[in-house]
């Protein structure tokens, strides 16, 4: 699948009409609703869905209306029970009529659908697109910006795009273990992350803010808490964020003991902190841990208290996640938490 900044002409006309009639650029909402599109693919899908709904709605009203008419009009009255009604065995013309009409409806629906499939899936990627690679893990999202040298987790930042100067984000989707699915309803339809089967998707977000989603393919015990946050930033916000992420980890001399704990305990075998000896990749990259708003891919807000609780016993926040309790004593726990709290 390749992203696109300008869709084929006819689709543009459709979307312009729809936007004139229906769509004010919506920003992010607390409910990740498919009815509040904020990005081109989501918007196109929404427009098509309304078209399909109107057709199926008409079919429903017609057939259900006829059914209701029949059950009211032909319900038997007490006196009528003695004779049987006229037995009608069939009618070829009627059968033909109600075969042909559905066929025509299917043709219309099929052609409109096919057009959008190709428009979304097969459109070429523009130069201005941002490349992000998302790798699904049980139960967190690894996020890499290959051309920018950034590795983070669970929370993506992407630049806001616009009609005049499109900057879509092109996501390569991979998996390190089982099947997952990347779904931010306001931004695009979902695409699965399948091991040994690279996928791709694209978004073209037109309004800034935080968009919510979560893993949409059952992946094991804590599938429910594999949440997703996409921050659509204005251009300067985005470059600030990028610059910060590209820095190696903050080295605060006040927390050297904590850093020692981190580097001598098994933490390093799963986690990486750029600029230290820690290069583990099984768990999320912690270089800029405090630049994220949640921990445990959305299991809890990212504050010192939750962080400490998480490190003490991840299962208390996310039972079944793959990080074991680290069996640290209280002092080690305090120190390592203090250390991690400096990693902005």
């Amino acid at each position, binding site marked *: 699948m390749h992203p696109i900044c300008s869709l084929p002409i006819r689709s543009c006309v459709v979307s312009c009409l729809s936007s004139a009639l229906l769509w004010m650029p919506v920003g992010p909402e607390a409910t990740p609703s498919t009815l509040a599109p904020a990005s081109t693919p989501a918007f196109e899908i929404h427009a098509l869905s309304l078209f399909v709904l109107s057709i199926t709605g008409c079919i429903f009203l017609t057939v259900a209306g006829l059914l209701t008419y029949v059950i009211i009009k032909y319900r038997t009255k007490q006196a009528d029970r003695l004779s049987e009604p006229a037995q009608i065995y069939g009618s070829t013309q009627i*059968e033909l009529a109600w075969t042909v009409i559905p066929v025509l409806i299917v043709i219309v629906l099929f052609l409109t659908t096919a057009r959008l499939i190709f428009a979304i899936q097969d459109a070429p990627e523009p130069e201005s697109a941002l490349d992000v690679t998302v790798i699904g893990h049980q139960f967190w999202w690894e996020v890499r910006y290959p051309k920018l040298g950034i590795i983070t987790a669970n929370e993506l930042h992407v630049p806001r795009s616009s009609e005049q100067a499109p900057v879509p984000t092109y996501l390569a989707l991979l998996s390190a273990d089982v099947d997952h699915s990347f779904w931010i309803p306001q931004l695009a*339809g979902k695409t699965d992350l399948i091991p*040994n089967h690279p996928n791709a998707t694209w978004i073209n977000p037109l309004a800034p803010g935080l968009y919510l989603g979560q893993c949409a393919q059952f992946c094991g015990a804590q599938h429910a808490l594999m949440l997703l946050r996409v921050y659509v930033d204005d251009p300067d916000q985005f470059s600030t964020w990028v610059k910060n992420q590209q820095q190696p980890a903050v080295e605060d001399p006040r927390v050297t003991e904590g850093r020692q704990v981190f580097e001598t305990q098994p933490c390093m075998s799963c986690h990486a902190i750029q600029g230290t000896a820690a290069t583990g990749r099984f768990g999320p990259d912690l270089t800029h841990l405090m630049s994220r708003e949640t921990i445990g891919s959305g299991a809890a807000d990212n504050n010192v208290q939750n962080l400490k609780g998480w490190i003490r016993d991840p299962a208390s926040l996310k039972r079944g996640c793959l990080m074991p309790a680290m069996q640290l004593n209280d002092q080690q726990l305090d120190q390592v938490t203090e250390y991690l709290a400096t990693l902005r």
Partner: protein
Amino acid sequence: MGENSLRLPSSIDLAPSRRFTETFPEWLHEWVVTVDHKRLGMLYIVYAIFFLLVAGAQAIAIRIQLAFPGNHFLVAQAYNRFFTMHGTTMVFLVGMPILFGFGNYVVPLQIGARDMAYPRLNAFSFWLTAFGGLFLYYSFLGGGGLYGVGTAPDVGWWAYAPLTAKAFSPGHATDYWALALIASGFGTLGTAINIIATVISMRCKGMTMMRLPLFSWLMLVVSSLTLITITPLTAAQIMLVIDRYLGGHFFDTQAGGSAVIWMHFFWIFGHPEVYVLVLPAFAIANEVIPVFSRKAIFGYPAMVAASVGIAFISLSVWAHHMFTVGMTSVSNTFFVLSTMMVGIPTGIKIFNWLATMWGGKIRFATPMLFCTAFLYQFLIAGLTGIMLSVAPWNWQLHNSYFVIAHFHYVLVGAIVFCIFGAIYYWYPKATGRMLDEKLGKWHFWLFLIGFHVTFDTMHFVGILGMPRSIYTYQPDRGWNTLNLIVSSGGIIQGVAVLLFAINLIWSYFYGQEAGNDPWDAWTLEWGTSSPPPPYNFAEDPVVRSRRPLWDLKHPEDPDWEYES
């Protein structure tokens, strides 16, 4: 109701004695060794109803857990086992057995035969299916799961690879799933083969294929479809077991294997499977609607053609469950087309039922209430299916609660409603007693209300972005109230089903005597006593039209003068 039932020379009025003259072990033994299709049919149905209650309880537990965000009624692992078992049980231990149970009971009677083609195979198939189910449930007791209940399967009823690989599912949960279903799958195959051989080879004199009652026709179609539906699942499960125990790499992505090919194999089974489940519902509607509208089915040949068409086309739509896995746009487009096409013969059937009722004299006894609700609900289910077939929209709706709402509309709204209708319709034949009509109406209305409260609402929570298979959800996403509503509908349905269970038991002892033909119907099973003698008919029937009893009751205006 009973006034019109005829005494046919081919039946003997036995007025079966209600007193149990045997000892309990003797009675039990009779049921265990029986090869009588009627008894096996009832065993299937009772077995299925038992598991309906069990899986229903699992559903209630799921809905209690989801009634509030962050609820602690079920921990994550237990919840994952519950929804896996709910789906697996409902499809394999409720849906399949009850529909083949009805097939077993009704088909030989309708075609004027004495039993199925292979009575002993029939018994063997039942017990194999039963064993499979019990083995599956044994998993709740076995093993020591980490946090949840025993080691019941917890990988979803679709068991996607590589989650099911030994690496990601180290315990025996997946093994129970695969092995239990392989066993019960063979049982299903046996019954399917039996029904095919019975319908083809054991029809009574004069009953050409185009004079078969539609119920039996559809059971033939269903059984044929089953042959090539269950076997892909069996194949895939054998491959899974080879992967897990012999080091195979069928679905081992580390060795170059493909996770997607599991999906293909599973849905090549899974989609036709839902047609295997729904065609018998159509079969039931094909019997009930004409009788209670007092008219012959409109367009019998078209109904046959549509059913066969549905079976064929259904084999080509499977990847509409996989629109999000990254198939090419051409592949996606193909499956959009095939899926939309299967809607056409399905729609034709709805129109034919409508036309059957048109101009009729409709009696809304309980069977007809259920089948009428079926018509509305199946219409909606079909239309949400069309919505889901639109691949780009599917990219949003897939794996959300919209899909769950859609398929429960089919499975409950269409199939379970028809099954209830069928039980109210044929219970008098099987037991000689009518089910209580008043309780029946309470059952119907309560179940209808509960069903709609739950599943209408569920569509919206999916559109609002809630995915499926999650043991809890975030409190600030606006899904709270809707989930609570969905859950409360479940309680109402539970009450309705309880009333139904009470009706079944109470009516067995105190129900009104039914006689041969309480509904004034037209197919052969109503021409013999209720319950039928073990040999079904004293003399082999001879028929000349699709409605042999209509011909007898209306000698001045028999069907054969009109049928082409």
